[in-house]
């Protein structure tokens, strides 16, 4: 493996629309995707809500961005992990999400975290 390739994990933790963190986080990820690093996205807590289907932001006058997650595949960003407990606590299942994700236990995600060179929370 090329030693110049870094493992960079983006952790989405906030609900969409109430603040800009997830949206600007996604903008960061799209740029980083062009650099051919080993990128992964993890959705923990309210971060999962960013992936909820059927978001219609017309009424609040803010541009929606849930569909942008679907574009990640085209950038070869394929590691999307969702924390099982966060998903279950919110009464959601994988079917409620706009993209395919891998649902994992916290201990497994925690182990992946320790393998990273960089972890950025959004």
């Amino acid at each position, binding site marked *: 493996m090329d030693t110049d390739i870094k493992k960079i994990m983006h952790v989405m933790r906030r*609900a969409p*629309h109430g603040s800009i963190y997830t949206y600007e986080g996604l903008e960061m990820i799209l740029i980083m995707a062009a650099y051919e690093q080993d990128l992964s996205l993890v959705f923990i807590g309210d971060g999962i809500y960013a992936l*909820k*289907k059927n*978001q219609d932001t017309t*009424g*609040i006058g803010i541009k*929606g961005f849930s569909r942008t997650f679907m574009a990640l595949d085209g950038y070869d960003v394929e590691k999307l992990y969702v924390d099982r407990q966060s998903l279950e606590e*919110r*009464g959601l299942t994988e079917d409620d999400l706009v993209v395919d994700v891998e649902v994992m236990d916290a201990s497994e995600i925690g182990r992946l975290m320790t393998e990273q060179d960089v972890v950025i929370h959004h």
Partner: protein
Amino acid sequence: MLHTINKSPFENNTFTTCVRFLQPGDPILFIEDGVYAVQDGNRFGALIQSMLKKNNPVYALKPDIDARGISAVADGVRMVDYAGFVDLVEEHQVNSWL
């Protein structure tokens, strides 16, 4: 007095704190990320029902519900748009729990 809550109850204690201060009849309005509290079937359902039983009407801002893709809300929760928000403010003094 109308109480508004704009934080997700999953990450932040604002909602559960506010409830301790509610007076009989006080309505509560969930806006922004606060609307996740009324998503049907989550763990805050019991708290919502107990508020309704104590005659504290529960409202949620529909544009915020729609923006977050919440398809079903807990029984008894009433939806308002911004005009309905204005009507509630006309009826009550306001306490915005930030």
